């Protein structure tokens, strides 16, 4: 008998029952909730006269709509305010743990779950948000769900699921200096495409992944969905366990020891069989910059904007042409000649302390270039913000001309006041470069925090490896 993959183990540990056609009832250990995808689910519960099955598994936070300035004045947009107030009313009615906007623990749902130890190895974690894959970094089975499923989990603690196929993406060897988790995952998506992982759960492995911090692993798993995979995951190791230790919701004492022993099993067996295996050479990855309107449209910063005439396939070529037009780019332009208007450092992909440190290291002693209209840093949570301030990172950014904001999703999806105007070009550490994602007509280029910082101080995309160490 062949061994089990990490995903097989997580799946097997959570199956309550299986129907004849393979549909399983899967038990959910942690349910994260935010204001955008939950109101209709709570309303559904109320209409059916149902109560949540286990409120102690639910953690709620407003993040998508919250303002990143002048928090003391509340939310000025009346429609956004109603949505956040609706969450507030729902959590009170149903008795759910909640971090309101005024709580230092508030932040992006995928940042605060791990930060609080609410995400633990071996768990099933769901949220009405596709970037729930982030939590897979802990050796957890974590995936995004729709609002009907949010209601289903609230009411039954379970989900109806079909098992996905197993894919291993092995990033072999080590990346060079200046190349980060974000570059790794963008390179993976460039390789397998935005639908490459559809129908699969992806395990990220290989030495380059093992060498990443948990923050870096979260960045990689976060974007599994951009490769089409609902779930991404990394096996549990010492790095995982030391990250979890001592966090607010993590077990302690004997329970901790018992848990750690169990968590160590959450890795693929050496003889486990995968339906698909992809190998990527870490040493060959350069800092990445997306050029188009899909995350697979990505090139190394050392490269050029691709030419649709060389695409070979007519459907692909027409998609590329449409993307170039939307992005206002000419084929064959060297990437480092593309000038930018705005810089956004934030989002559940890259707003943790390590990301802010990496950006600050580039920014320190430099200034935001004159052609850059706005450069902003939006920490992932109140606690990340506080830690960054203790380390003096806020001063580094402010002195360079960046804005230093309150935590939330912000310009990752521009549901609040932070957005691009039509035609504006942004170096963004977020995860989606879809048309209009950061504001109607806005042009998004996905990059790492260090690359966003390099673009901010030079005014165009710049290979962060070429920047001389800052003065002083």
């Amino acid at each position, binding site marked *: 008998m062949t061994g089990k993959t990490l995903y097989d183990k997580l799946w097997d540990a959570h199956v309550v029952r299986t129907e004849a056609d393979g549909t399983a009832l899967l038990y959910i250990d942690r349910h994260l909730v935010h204001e955008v995808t939950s109101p209709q689910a709570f309303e559904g519960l109320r209409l059916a006269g149902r109560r949540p099955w286990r409120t102690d598994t639910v953690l709620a936070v407003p993040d998508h709509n919250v303002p990143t300035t002048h928090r003391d004045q509340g939310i000025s947009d009346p429609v956004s305010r109603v949505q956040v107030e609706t969450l507030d009313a729902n959590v009170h009615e149903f008795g759910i743990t909640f971090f309101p906007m005024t709580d230092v623990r508030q932040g992006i749902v995928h940042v605060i779950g791990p930060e609080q130890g609410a995400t633990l190895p071996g768990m099933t974690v769901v949220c009405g948000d596709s970037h729930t894959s982030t939590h897979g970094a802990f050796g957890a089975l974590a995936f995004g769900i729709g609002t009907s499923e949010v209601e289903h989990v609230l009411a039954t603690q379970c989900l109806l699921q*079909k098992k996905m196929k197993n894919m291993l993406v092995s990033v072999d060897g080590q990346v060079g200096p200046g190349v980060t988790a974000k570059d790794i995952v963008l390179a993976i998506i460039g390789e397998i495409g935005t639908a490459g992982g559809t129908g699969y759960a992806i395990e990220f492995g290989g030495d380059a992944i093992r060498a990443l911090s948990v923050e870096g692993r979260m960045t990689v798993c976060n974007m599994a969905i951009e490769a089409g995979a609902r779930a991404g995951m990394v096996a549990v190791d010492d790095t995982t366990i030391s990250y979890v230790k001592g966090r607010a919701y993590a077990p302690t004492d004997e329970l901790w020891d018992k*848990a750690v022993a169990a968590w160590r099993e959450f890795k693929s067996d050496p003889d486990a069989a995968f339906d698909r295996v992809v190998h990527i050479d870490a040493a060959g990855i350069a800092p990445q910059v997306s050029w188009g309107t899909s995350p697979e449209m990505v090139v190394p910063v050392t490269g050029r904007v691709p030419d649709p005439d060389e695409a070979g396939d007519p459907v692909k070529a027409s998609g590329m042409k449409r993307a170039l037009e939307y992005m206002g780019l000419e084929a064959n332009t060297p990437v480092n000649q593309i000038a930018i208007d705005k810089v956004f450092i934030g989002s559940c992909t890259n707003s943790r302390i390590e990301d802010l440190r990496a950006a600050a290291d580039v920014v320190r002693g430099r200034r935001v270039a004159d052609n850059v209209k706005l450069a902003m840093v939006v920490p992932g949570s109140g606690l990340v913000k506080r830690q960054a301030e203790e380390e003096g990172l806020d001063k580094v950014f402010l002195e360079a001309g960046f804005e230093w904001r309150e935590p939330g999703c912000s310009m990752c999806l521009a549901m609040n006041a932070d957005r691009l105007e039509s035609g504006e070009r942004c170096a963004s550490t977020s995860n989606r470069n879809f048309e209009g994602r950061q504001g109607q007509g806005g042009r998004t280029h996905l990059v790492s925090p260090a690359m966003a910082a390099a673009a901010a101080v030079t005014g165009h995309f710049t290979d962060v490896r070429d920047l001389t160490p800052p003065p002083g």
Partner: protein
Amino acid sequence: MKPLTTVDGLVVPLDRSNVDTDAIIPKQYLKSVKRTGFGPNLFDDWRYLDPGEPGMDHSKRRINPDFVLNDPHYWGAEILLARKNFGCGSSREHAVWALTDYGIRVVIAPSFADIFFSNSFKNGLLPIVLDEAVVDRLFAEVSATPGYRLNVDLAAQTVTTPSGEAIPFEVGEFHKHCLLNGLDDIALTLEHADDIRAYEQRRRAEAPWLFR
């Protein structure tokens, strides 16, 4: 949920691959706390030339005459013909609500993103996967034939073209059952409440840190 058995409907072709949920329903409309009313904003950025905000009077907005939904030939369409990886991106069920609110009951494409696919079934929207070559041919037929209709029969699992050709499609048994009967899957799951409790009891012994 409204049952879905057969749909004999006009087909509207959307000839783009990787249509993401941000395009299907832009974020500003996600601020709604309701499940209805998203139809006028389906494909908002492509359908209108002016930027849209919640609460606008859509009859006063500038229409993009080049977008297929604005072509009067396709008004009243119930079947959307699309390209690969339809519904990629965010988990927003609002994308499905916008399609159904507009009147779409079936989407045909060579592939769908996973979350969109499962959201569809919860709302009486049938996503049908057909071979890329077949989809190509349907695109050609739709553009050559004004008023092109397809007949979708869920029980028989067929899509029938005007020439009478019946194209078979796959659908999961459970999904089919729920859709045909308009079943609420929460009620179905709660029939297994004893199994869920038994699982919890077992887990509590194995992994007590998950029950605190």
